[in-house]
C-alpha cells in the first residue's frame, strides 16, 4: 500500500480524478505539496459527487423554500412541515455505478445510504421508493442486473424494516452500459426535534459510531464521478457490502441516543466516509476538527491513514456529543452491540488535522476544502428541439385491440408486480395504498386519518427530445400523481442523472432540465428540498437519456377519501377531466407500435396543470369520485385499460364524432389530464364543478362488463389485457441467461 510520503506525480494526481488546474489550486491554497492522505482528501472533497462543481451554479436557481419547508437542500435530507408539530424528512440518492458493477450490493448499499440520510436527522423511516433504469431487455446483461438490483433493494429494505411502496422501472438501450438506481426514503420526526450536522462548541468529543472501518469502496466517490470504459473490471474490489442488520441497530441506537439530548451534531458517513462527514460538521460550525486515527475501530489490520479517510464502509456515523453525557451515550451503543469510539475533538483553529501513529498526516484549512472547491460554469449548448410531429402524420392502427394489448404488455408499461412483490410494502402496518396505483399512501402513525402520499416520476424520452419541457413534465407528473390519490403535493426531491457534463450538449440538457424543473416547481408551489446529482453516466462515449427523477410527497388530511385507480362499480360514469388527447410526438404509441422516437414531447401548460389538478383534488376530497387515474404514458386508452385491469371490471366508452384524430384522442399524451369515475347521481355536480373551474369534463361512457369496449372502434377482453400486462415481467425474468 502507498505510504503517506509517496511522491505526488502527475499520474497519481490524474488517478485521483484531479485536473492539472485543480491540483494547482491545491498548491496555491496550502502553499506546499500535499501528502498522499491530503491528496486523497482533496480528491474526495473536490470530486463531482461531493462538491457539485458542475451543477452548483444551476442548482442554486431551483426554488427551495415555501411556507412548509423547515429545511431545504444542504443537510442530509429535506424537512417539510406536515402539521400537528410533525415533519416529513426525505431525499433521493443514486447508486448507479456501484449497482452496475455489483447489482445486489450496489443497490442494497444505495438503499442503506438513503435510509441513513433520513434517520441521521432524527426521523424514523416510514417509506422507501426506487427509480430503476435498465438497458434494453434483450441486452445480455439486463436480466442479471434487474434480478440483482431488485433483490438488493428488497434485501436491504425488507430486513431494515421500511415499507418500499413505489418507484419506477424503465428499459432503454441508452442505459445498456449505465443503469440507474435511485433510492428514495422518507421518515417522520417531531418538527422541533430535528438533528443537523453543524458542530457547535470547541474542545468537544467527536464520536465514531456504528460498524468498523474496512477498505470497502476506497476511492468510491471518485469512481462515481468517472466515466466508465472497458477497464471497468479493474475497479471491482472497491465494492461495499451492506449490513442491513447493522443499520437497523444503528437506527434504533441513534434514535434512542437522540432522545437523551446528548447529540449536538450528527452526520452519517456516506460517500468518502470519514473525510466528508468530519469536514462538513466542522466547516458548517466554523470549527476545526482534529482526528486521531489510532482510535478508529478498524476491521482490517494495517490500514493506512489514506484508506481510513477514504473508506466507504457502511453503517457508520459521526457525532459531536455533550461531554457530560458521553457515558450515557456509550451505554446505549454498547447495548445495541455497536462500536463507540471518541476519535477526535473540535478545535477553534479551522484546521482539519489528522494524526496517525504519532504523526500528523494531514493538516488542511477545513473551510477551503468545501468552500474553495472548484466551481465550474461549464459551457453548454441547447440542442434544437426536434420538429413537431402532427398526429395526422402518424399512422393510425388497423386494430386498436392488438395495439392496446401490445402497449400494456410492453416492457415499460407492463405490470411491475414482479418487482414490488419482492419488496415488503406492508411492514409497519400503515400502508393505505400499495404499489400499483398513481401514488403510494401511508397513514401517519398515531393518527387515524392523516396520510402521506409518495410518487417517483420522470419521462426520460421527453427530456431527451426537449430537456426544458421534459424537466417541467417530470415535476408536473409527480405533482399530478400525488393529486390523483387526493393528496396536496408538498415538496419534492430530485435525482439528476446525466452524462458527461464536460460535453456542451450534455451540459445543455442539464441546464434545460433544471430550468424546466424550476419553472414547474414555482408554478405549482412544489419546492425542491433535497436532491442528488449523478453525472458522467456514460460508457464509451454513449450517455444515458437525461433522467431527472423527481420524488414527491403529498399530504392527505383524510385517507378515507383517498382515490385509487380501479373501476369500482358497474354503472359508474367515466369522465375525462382536462382537454382531449391529440399529441403523439414522443408517445408510447409512436415508440412501441411504430418504432419511432420522434417529434416534440407534449408541452405542459402549468397554469392548466394546476387548475385541473386542484379541481380533481377537490372532487376526490369531496368524495365525488369513485376512481381516479392520471393520464400519462400511453394516453387515455392505456389509462382506461389500467383502471379496468386493476379489478377486472370493464367499460364501454365512446369517442366524440368530431375528433381530430382517433389515435391522437386515444393514445395522445397531452398533459394536465385525468380520468375519474363518478356515480350517475353526482355526475351533474361534477360537471358543474368543472365548468366553474374552467376545466373541460367529457363523459366517455360507463363502467361494467368484462370487456373494454370503444364503440365502433374496438373491443377487447379485460382478462386478455391483464394476462399480457401481468405476464411480461415474470416471463422475461424466467428466462435464464
Amino acid at each position, binding site marked *: 500500500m502507498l505510504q503517506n510520503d509517496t511522491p505526488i506525480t502527475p499520474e497519481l494526481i490524474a488517478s485521483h480524478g484531479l485536473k492539472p488546474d485543480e491540483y494547482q489550486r491545491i498548491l496555491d491554497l496550502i502553499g506546499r505539496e500535499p501528502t498522499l492522505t491530503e491528496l486523497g482528501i482533496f480528491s474526495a472533497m473536490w470530486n463531482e459527487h461531493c462538491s457539485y462543481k458542475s451543477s452548483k451554479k444551476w442548482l442554486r436557481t431551483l426554488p427551495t423554500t415555501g411556507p412548509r419547508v423547515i429545511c431545504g437542500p444542504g443537510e442530509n435530507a429535506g424537512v417539510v412541515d406536515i402539521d400537528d408539530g410533525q415533519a416529513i424528512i426525505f431525499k433521493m440518492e443514486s447508486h448507479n455505478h456501484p449497482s452496475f458493477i455489483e447489482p445486489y*450490493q450496489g443497490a442494497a448499499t444505495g438503499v442503506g445510504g438513503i435510509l441513513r440520510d433520513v434517520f441521521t436527522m432524527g426521523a424514523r423511516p416510514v417509506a422507501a421508493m426506487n427509480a430503476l433504469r435498465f438497458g434494453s431487455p434483450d441486452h445480455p446483461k439486463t436480466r442479471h442486473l434487474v434480478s440483482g438490483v431488485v433483490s438488493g433493494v428488497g434485501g436491504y429494505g425488507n430486513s431494515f424494516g421500511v415499507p418500499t411502496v413505489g418507484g419506477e422501472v424503465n428499459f432503454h438501450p441508452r442505459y445498456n452500459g449505465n443503469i440507474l438506481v435511485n433510492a428514495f426514503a422518507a421518515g417522520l420526526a417531531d418538527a422541533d426535534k430535528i438533528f443537523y450536522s453543524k458542530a457547535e462548541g470547541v474542545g468537544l468529543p467527536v464520536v465514531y459510531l456504528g460498524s468498523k472501518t474496512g*477498505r*470497502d469502496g476506497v476511492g468510491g466517490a471518485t469512481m462515481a464521478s468517472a466515466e466508465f470504459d472497458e477497464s471497468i473490471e479493474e475497479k471491482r*474490489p472497491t*465494492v461495499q*457490502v451492506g*449490513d442491513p*442488520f447493522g443499520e437497523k441497530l444503528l437506527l434504533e441506537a441513534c434514535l434512542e441516543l437522540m432522545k437523551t439530548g446528548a447529540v449536538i451534531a450528527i452526520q452519517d458517513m456516506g460517500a468518502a466516509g470519514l473525510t466528508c462527514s468530519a469536514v462538513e460538521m466542522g466547516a458548517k460550525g466554523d470549527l476545526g476538527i482534529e482526528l486521531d486515527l489510532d482510535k478508529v475501530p478498524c476491521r482490517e489490520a494495517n490500514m493506512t491513514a489514506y484508506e481510513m479517510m477514504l473508506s466507504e464502509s*457502511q453503517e457508520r456515523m459521526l457525532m459531536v456529543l455533550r461531554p457530560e453525557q458521553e457515558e450515557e451515550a456509550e451505554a446505549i451503543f454498547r447495548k445495541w452491540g455497536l462500536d463507540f469510539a471518541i476519535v477526535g475533538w473540535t478545535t477553534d483553529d479551522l484546521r482539519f488535522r489528522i494524526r496517525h501513529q504519532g504523526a500528523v498526516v494531514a493538516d488542511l484549512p477545513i473551510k477551503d476544502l468545501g468552500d474553495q472547491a472548484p466551481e465550474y460554469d461549464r459551457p453548454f449548448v441547447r440542442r434544437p428541439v426536434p420538429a413537431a410531429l402532427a398526429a395526422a402524420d402518424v399512422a393510425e392502427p388497423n386494430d386498436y385491440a392488438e395495439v392496446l394489448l401490445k402497449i400494456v404488455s410492453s416492457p415499460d408499461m407492463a405490470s411491475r408486480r414482479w418487482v414490488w412483490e419482492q419488496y415488503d410494502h406492508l411492514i409497519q402496518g400503515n400502508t393505505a395504498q400499495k404499489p400499483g396505483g398513481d401514488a403510494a399512501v401511508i397513514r401517519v402513525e398515531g393518527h387515524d386519518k392523516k396520510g402521506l402520499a409518495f410518487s417517483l416520476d420522470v419521462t426520460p424520452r421527453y427530456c431527451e427530445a426537449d430537456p426544458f419541457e421534459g424537466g417541467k413534465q417530470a415535476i408536473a407528473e409527480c405533482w399530478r400523481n400525488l393529486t390523483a390519490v387526493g393528496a396536496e403535493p408538498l415538496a419534492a426531491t430530485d435525482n439528476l442523472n446525466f452524462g458527461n457534463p464536460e460535453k456542451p450538449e450534455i451540459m445543455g440538457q442539464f441546464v434545460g432540465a433544471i430550468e424546466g424543473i424550476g419553472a414547474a416547481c414555482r408554478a405549482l408551489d412544489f419546492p425542491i428540498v433535497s436532491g442528488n446529482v449523478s453525472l458522467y453516466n456514460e460508457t464509451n462515449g454513449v450517455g444515458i437519456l437525461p433522467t431527472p427523477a423527481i420524488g414527491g410527497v403529498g399530504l392527505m388530511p383524510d385517507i378515507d377519501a383517498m382515490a385509487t385507480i380501479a373501476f369500482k362499480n358497474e354503472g359508474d360514469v367515466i369522465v375525462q377531466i382536462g382537454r382531449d388527447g391529440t399529441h403523439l410526438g414522443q408517445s408510447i404509441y409512436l415508440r412501441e407500435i411504430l418504432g419511432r422516437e420522434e417529434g416534440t414531447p407534449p408541452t405542459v401548460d402549468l397554469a392548466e396543470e394546476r387548475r385541473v389538478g386542484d379541481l380533481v383534488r377537490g372532487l376526490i376530497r369531496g368524495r365525488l369520485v369513485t376512481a381516479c387515474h392520471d393520464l400519462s404514458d400511453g394516453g387515455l386508452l392505456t389509462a382506461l385499460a389500467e383502471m379496468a385491469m386493476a379489478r377486472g371490471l370493464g367499460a364501454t366508452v365512446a369517442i366524440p364524432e368530431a375528433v381530430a384524430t382517433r389515435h391522437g384522442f386515444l393514445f395522445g399524451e397531452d398533459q394536465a389530464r385525468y380520468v375519474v369515475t363518478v356515480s350517475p347521481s353526482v355526475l351533474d355536480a361534477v360537471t358543474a364543478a368543472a365548468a366553474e373551474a374552467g376545466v373541460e369534463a367529457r363523459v366517455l361512457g360507463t363502467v361494467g362488463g368484462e370487456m373494454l369496449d370503444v364503440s365502433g372502434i374496438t373491443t377487447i377482453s379485460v382478462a386478455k389485457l391483464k394476462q399480457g400486462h401481468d405476464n411480461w415481467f415474470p416471463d422475461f425474468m424466467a428466462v435464464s441467461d
Partner: protein
Amino acid sequence: MKARVTVTLKNGVLDPQGKAIEGALGALGFAGIGSVRQGKVFDIEVEGTDAVKAKAELEAMAAKLLANTVIENYRVEIVD
C-alpha cells in the same frame, strides 16, 4: 463423478454473517474465537469420467454462476 466447489469471500470484503456468528458464539460461551468467515459449498454430481475436463467445466460454472467473482473466490475439487 462428485465434485465440490467452495466459494469464499475475498479478503477484506465485509462479512456481516460471519460477524453475527462470532457474536453468537461468544454469547453461547465459546471463548477464544477469532474471526468467523462464512462461505458456500456446492456438491455437484458430474457425468463422465474425464476429471480434467470436468474440472475445467466446473471452473467455468463457478466463474459464471456459483461465485460472485466481484467479491468471492472459488475453488474446485473433484472428490471422487
